[in-house]
């Protein structure tokens, strides 16, 4: 059992309240996942040439200023950094692939938690309330957030094994369920260039989407392909730069509920996580269909979200 929550604000006037609206959703799911928690916040979109990285290091003696200086020298860029508990938010001008290569090669004790122009992921072992407090979730501003409360079943309770899992530029994945063919799939994905940090089945799902999309699939195509290639139980929520996507496996044992008003779209494992949102009493509330990809995103004509018809099939 795990808990998933997602909140996307259609009305930008609410952006200042993202954390205040989202934190209670996450905490409400504590019973579903008390051992670790994490969230992705989409805020402060960087200009085209710049990247945001969130790095994590459990070693308190690790020198973030030294790393920033090293990045400045290596990438010939100015580097802004802000330390948040065990994580460090870095802004720099660089190519994502080059930065990934750098951290894959460098023998550093820190790990890349998220990478993109928009996304910031923070995650830790501990009760959701503690984790939210460590990273000051309540004060967070932004357009949308994805969160997870973990009750580990498949692998160790560690920071790296917590969700969300970064799946490449500005994407992240949270998972409720368990995959049964993840070991075989992990070996296949490693041959396709994926580098794994944990034994976690959900990381395999995240890397699967990453590999699919690097091979040219759209997010929807990658998710529909996942229905064929992933064996097991899942409700996934995928955070994207301008929205989020939801997919349940065809058996649909793992719960999910969605709600929408003129101001926001939200999803959660259980309705009680949505019960505090403003206007939820009159929101459209529904259960996402099994084996159907739901995508909500900012349209070209303002901040309206829409569900795409699920006719796209895997390439």
């Amino acid at each position, binding site marked *: 059992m795990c808990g998933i929550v997602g909140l996307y604000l259609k009305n930008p006037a609410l952006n200042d309240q993202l954390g205040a609206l989202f934190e209670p959703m996450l905490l409400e799911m504590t019973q579903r996942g008390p051992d670790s928690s994490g969230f992705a916040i989409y805020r402060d979109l960087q200009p085209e040439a710049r990247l945001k990285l969130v790095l994590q290091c459990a070693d308190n003696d690790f020198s973030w200023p030294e790393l920033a200086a090293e990045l400045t020298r290596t990438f010939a860029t100015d580097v802004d950094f802000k330390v948040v508990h065990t994580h460090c938010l870095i802004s720099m001008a660089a190519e994502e692939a080059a930065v990934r290569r750098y951290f894959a090669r460098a023998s550093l004790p820190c790990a890349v938690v998220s990478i993109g122009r928009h996304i910031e992921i923070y995650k830790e072992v501990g009760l959701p309330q503690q984790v939210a407090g460590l990273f000051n979730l309540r004060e967070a501003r932004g357009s949308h957030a994805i969160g997870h409360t973990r009750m580990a079943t498949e692998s160790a309770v560690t920071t790296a094994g917590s969700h969300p899992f970064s799946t490449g530029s500005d994407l992240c994945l949270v998972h409720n369920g368990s995959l049964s063919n993840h070991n075989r799939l992990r070996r296949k994905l490693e041959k396709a260039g994926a580098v794994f940090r944990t034994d976690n089945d959900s990381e395999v799902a995240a890397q699967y989407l990453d590999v699919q999309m690097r091979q040219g699939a759209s997010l929807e195509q990658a998710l529909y392909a996942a229905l064929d290639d992933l064996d097991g139980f899942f409700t996934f929520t995928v955070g994207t730069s301008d929205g989020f996507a939801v997919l349940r496996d*065809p*058996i*649909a*044992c793992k*719960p999910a*509920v969605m709600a929408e008003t003129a101001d926001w779209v939200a999803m959660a494992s*259980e*309705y*009680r*996580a*949505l*019960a*505090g949102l403003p206007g939820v*009493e009159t929101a459209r*509330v*529904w*259960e996402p269909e*099994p084996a159907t990809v739901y995508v909500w995103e900012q349209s070209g004509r303002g901040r309206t979200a829409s569900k795409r018809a699920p006719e796209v099939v895997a390439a």
Partner: protein
Amino acid sequence: MSASETLPTTRVVDLRSSTVRELNQALHDLPPDAALSRWEVRSAAGEHALAVGINAPCTVEIKGHVGYYCAGMNKHAEITIHGNAGTGLAENMMSGRVVLRGNASQSAGATGRGGLLVIEGDAAARCGISMKGIDIVVRGSVGHLSAFMAQRGRLVVGGDAGSALGDSLYEAQIFVRGQVTDLGADCIEKEMRAEHLEALGALLEAAGVNLPARAFRRYGSARTLYHFNVDHADTY
């Protein structure tokens, strides 16, 4: 004596100031032979296990969406939910009546032994799974694997039914008005005879669902899975 004096007063429980445990304990404290009592539950806010295990002829009105297992194991009570319900609505109901004004998540009416469950919206997957005598009337549609291994009782679907309807069915009866994606193993369409039309009409009326019985088709068990067939030994 005026009408208002004969009606019991309604006891209001607001879950912002009372716990679910206090609510359920108060409902359990009603003796089975008590006179009718009326309850209203406010601020449900998706809480789990509301109004479960009642064994008394009371009426309970629940305002708001409810979480898992609402009205489970109900005996005698008439429970109305003004909202949507999570997993396992009215599971293992013994008797009484549960009415849901909105949509139900998976496994609504699971294993129910008696009583009537009315869902005015849609029900998700596995509606009436392993039902054992309950009547379930869904005004809208039901998801996949509904009435899986259903043993007794009736599942009535005013809309469509998802795939594998009635898989491994025993003696429960299924009536569907709309499309059936596909039938599960050993579930077949059966003739709608006069006695079925009459019984279904009475059930629809009892459920307050205004649909004509003749618009429904009947499904039931082909009864080929009841006994081990030695000719099929190789397939096991």
